[in-house]
């Protein structure tokens, strides 16, 4: 039987310090029982120095004081019960049910921190997922098992885009392959959570969704565990139950801010913008849990959403994410302001895995070339626009004028599409060709003669 400790030495933000402690382990889960009410808060040992222990408390530490609580070390790591019954349920950030359902009982428990996947056990992801969105399918193709974040900004329609992807994405090859959604809301507004819940309902997937919710007004330490609980559930469903799981997570920015707040409470040396030096590894311990394995049928496809402070892609949150994830879908404010939905800024967007998941046998033989040409031409459009700002559009050369026309059409017809509109990849590629036909042939330097011959629409 473990000893109880009655005295809290110090409370700093989400951390408490207890002294004279024996026989606890690093990462051990702690129950903090308020003596007067019997209310239990959960915490975790994050530092041991001799007999002094620092505990990170997942709930609000307000009210905790020197003599009013009892600290019980549970002798357990942070484990969650795992079962197929997780589906259709809603939990808080430490995995406790917050819907009206009962607790999850299961013999299977999993440590929410997970462990690194052995690269030898991974299978390189190659299966195309059609999202029905032209810009994504054609230019930043989502691959099953990929981690592909949405880099957004405040007020941009990232939630709508994520919901549209959940609704339209075809995750499994066959109808009988089980798929599911794990949704983690980290520090989100109640409205946002409602929006997602409603869209899962509309997509008729609610009974296949596992939700972990930490609201904006919930304790920040719980934001650290929310994504871990979610990914643990995802790993279980994907790798133990052979399901194709799409993990949608919003907002990574809230997660990183929580990390910074705790780091500062721990008085750690900060690196850029006050974020801790280990934020890269910490984020990697989340993102790298996506993937596919050789001898498991299931997969984890991961769509984290983050809002870039000041729309700045070099901000540490976006920057470190981009260094870990397999590409990014960037939303652009200027497109949004011109009412283009989804406002995918194609030039900075990238899918690193698309190269092996497109082309003959996956999408269509011309896919890589069309994508390349669209990128190159649209990149040229930006230059021509800059020039036209200076010398005026009338004074542009004939060729440059054609680029202006192409740019406008590309945004209005290719990028822009309805929230409920799903285009298949063939439609999207054909649309790409139709737009490229607006440019002089000599400018199409990324296309081979064979593909031009076969796919480029002829002038009538």
């Amino acid at each position: 039987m473990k000893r109880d400790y009655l005295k809290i030495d110090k409370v700093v933000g989400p951390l408490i310090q207890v002294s004279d402690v024996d026989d606890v382990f690093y990462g051990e889960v702690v129950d903090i029982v308020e003596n007067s009410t019997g209310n239990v808060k959960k915490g975790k040992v994050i530092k041991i120095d001799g007999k002094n222990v620092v505990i990170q408390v997942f709930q609000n530490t307000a009210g905790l004081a020197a003599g009013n609580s009892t600290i019980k070390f549970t002798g357990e790591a942070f484990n969650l019960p795992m079962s197929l019954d997780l589906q259709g349920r809603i939990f808080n950030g430490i995995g406790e049910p917050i819907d009206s359902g009962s607790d999850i009982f299961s013999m299977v428990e999993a440590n929410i921190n997970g462990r690194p996947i052995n690269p030898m056990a991974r299978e390189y992801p190659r299966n195309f997922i059609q999202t029905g969105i032209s810009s994504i399918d054609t230019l930043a193709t989502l691959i099953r098992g990929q981690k592909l974040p949405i880099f957004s900004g405040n007020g941009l329609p990232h939630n709508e885009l994520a919901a549209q992807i959940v609704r339209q994405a075809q995750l499994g090859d066959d109808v009988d392959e089980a798929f599911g959604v794990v949704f983690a809301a980290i520090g989100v507004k109640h409205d946002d959570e409602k929006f997602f819940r409603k869209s899962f309902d509309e997509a008729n997937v609610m009974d296949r969704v596992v939700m972990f919710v930490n609201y904006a007004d919930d304790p920040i330490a719980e934001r650290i565990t929310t994504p871990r609980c979610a990914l643990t559930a995802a790993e279980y469903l994907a790798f133990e139950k052979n399901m194709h799981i799409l993990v949608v997570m919003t907002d990574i920015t809230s997660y990183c801010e929580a990390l910074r707040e705790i780091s500062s409470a721990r008085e750690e040396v900060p690196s850029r913008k006050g974020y801790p030096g280990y934020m890269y590894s910490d984020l990697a311990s989340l993102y790298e849990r996506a993937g596919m394995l050789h001898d498991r049928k299931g997969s984890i496809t991961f769509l984290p959403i983050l809002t870039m402070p000041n729309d700045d892609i070099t901000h540490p949150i976006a920057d470190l994410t981009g260094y870990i994830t397999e590409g990014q879908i960037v939303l652009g404010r200027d497109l949004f302001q011109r009412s283009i939905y989804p406002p995918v800024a194609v030039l900075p967007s990238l899918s690193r895995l698309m190269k092996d998941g497109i082309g003959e046998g996956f999408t269509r033989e011309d896919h890589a070339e069309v994508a390349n040409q669209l990128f190159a031409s649209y990149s040229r459009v930006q230059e021509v626009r800059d020039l036209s700002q200076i010398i005026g559009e009338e004074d542009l050369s004939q060729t440059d004028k054609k680029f202006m026309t192409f740019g406008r059409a590309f945004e209005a017809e290719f990028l822009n599409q309805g929230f409920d509109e799903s285009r298949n990849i063939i439609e999207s590629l054909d649309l790409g060709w139709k737009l490229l036909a607006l440019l002089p042939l000599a400018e199409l330097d990324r296309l081979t003669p064979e593909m031009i011959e076969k796919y480029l629409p002829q002038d009538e």
Partner: protein
Amino acid sequence: MAEIEENKVRGIISAINGPVIKGTNMTTFKMREMVMVGKNRLIGEVIVLEGDVGTIQVYEETEGLKTGEEITPTGRPLSLKLGPGMLKNMFDGIQRPLEKIQEISPIFIPEGIGLLSIDEEKLWDVTITAKPGDVLLAGSIFGSVQETKVIENRLLVPPNISGTVIEVSANGSYTIIDTLVKIQDGKNEIHELKMAHDWPVRTPRPSAYRRETLVPLITGQRVIDIFFPIAKGGTAAIPGGFGTGKTMTQHQLAKWSDADIIVYIGCGERGNEMTEVIEDFPKLIDPRSGESIMERTVLIANTSNMPVAAREASIYTGITIAEYYRDMGYAVAMMADSTSRWAEALREISGRLEEMPAEEGYPAYLPSRIAEFYERAGSVETLGGDDGSITIIGAVSPAGGDFSEPVTENTKRFVNVFLALDKSLAYGRHYPAINWLESYSGYIKILSDWYEDNVAEDCIDLRNKMLELLYEENKLQEMVMLVGEDVLPDDQRWVLEIAKIIKVGYLQQNAYNKDDTYVPLEKQYAMLKSIEYLYEKGRSGLKLGIPTSQLKDADIFGQFIKMKYTIPNDDLSGIDRLKDTIDTYYDALFKKYEN
């Protein structure tokens, strides 16, 4: 070893802070000693000793560790077992084979699996060349094993032992722990020579002396081989923000470089990228050996989610393995993707030690660590008298893509080739996104003789001329952005046109195209030479007063842009035909204007 351990004084864990722990009762421990930590015997290394308190960095997850548990000394520094069995394999940051770890745990990497290394049971066919009575100097070769289809492992006397051979085993099948030769040194001490020997990772392996680096590492990548060549035994850095192509470039170098041995370190990067290497490399045929490129490759993986202390070690593990093969007389090329993650691991450990930070939280010793690392590159005469070399190519991942941060800046001080990747080129899908204005190679001068002798007399001149043309184009582009292209005089517009061919037709190289992914040097040269030919033709035309619009023939320009795809790597006659086409077209054009 078990009984030795019994007698040793053990430390007691007193503090735990992530990968850094402290222990008491450690007066008999040594600095940099490898230790086993706690009940699970996690692998660690002593990094600070102060009185009886020791600080240890732990190479495995520390969750579950308790104060009061024991720290067991091993009596030796963190070392690698160097012997046959490393090629074609992938190891973690402390040389544990990931395939063997998978046998223990099929998916995830657990902690507490102990110290594993290269296979001690596998039998190798050994040929022993040493004879009784021979004097074997440190680092000399006493036999050989065919390690893979293309690489012969030359069995080395460890660099710290020498003596006279007193016993030799017969040629035959042995494991790496069998004794093959016994030698007696000057103090009459007898040493057993085996296929493998241990070497501490943090100690550079000695060589006889350093040579000058006079030969380029041929990579098959035009922008590197012709514009910014890397010398064998040299150093290069590839900095770039995310998505600019660091990993692709490193993979291309690992695949196609004409080194004998490749050591590839995935340091704090994606798991899937290592999986990709494991899946793809065995299928790629090395144009020189005719065998799979995996036959010459050693992989080290500490992916971004693996323990951070092992990330710090992975770089040293990689370079020590590279030195081992160098000592056999091989040209080794080592890629580290990304050295920034290693620097960040240093920063994290330093932070946990509560050291005084210098810039951006990095420890003050960051520059010296970077310098020490790159200084382990070089061309040498080995202790055994052979030529060996290590080329180091390090990726750098600057925070925010900004090259003025400490890791990029300090790396720049210690490398000779700087291949600056550029976000705007990557956005326009100009790959490899190596910015020709910012990049440089410090080897142009010393390699120019080699290029003159082996490629063409005028190769370097041609390169300089074309690079100047690109510089000029850059200046002209700035003007174009102010006034538009139409206002420029014709000779300047011609420069813009030719620069476009160089950029799209030459500098851009498609790693996914089966022919363009690797291009032999002769074709690289011939392509650029033909572009120069076109350039000069046009200039003659300009002198006759022919406008650029007439000089730019859509068909000819199209052929130039596509020549990387249309002209086979092994048949350059198409380039001569292209020149004929140019002659025919321009001669006709010139005639019109002459009259």
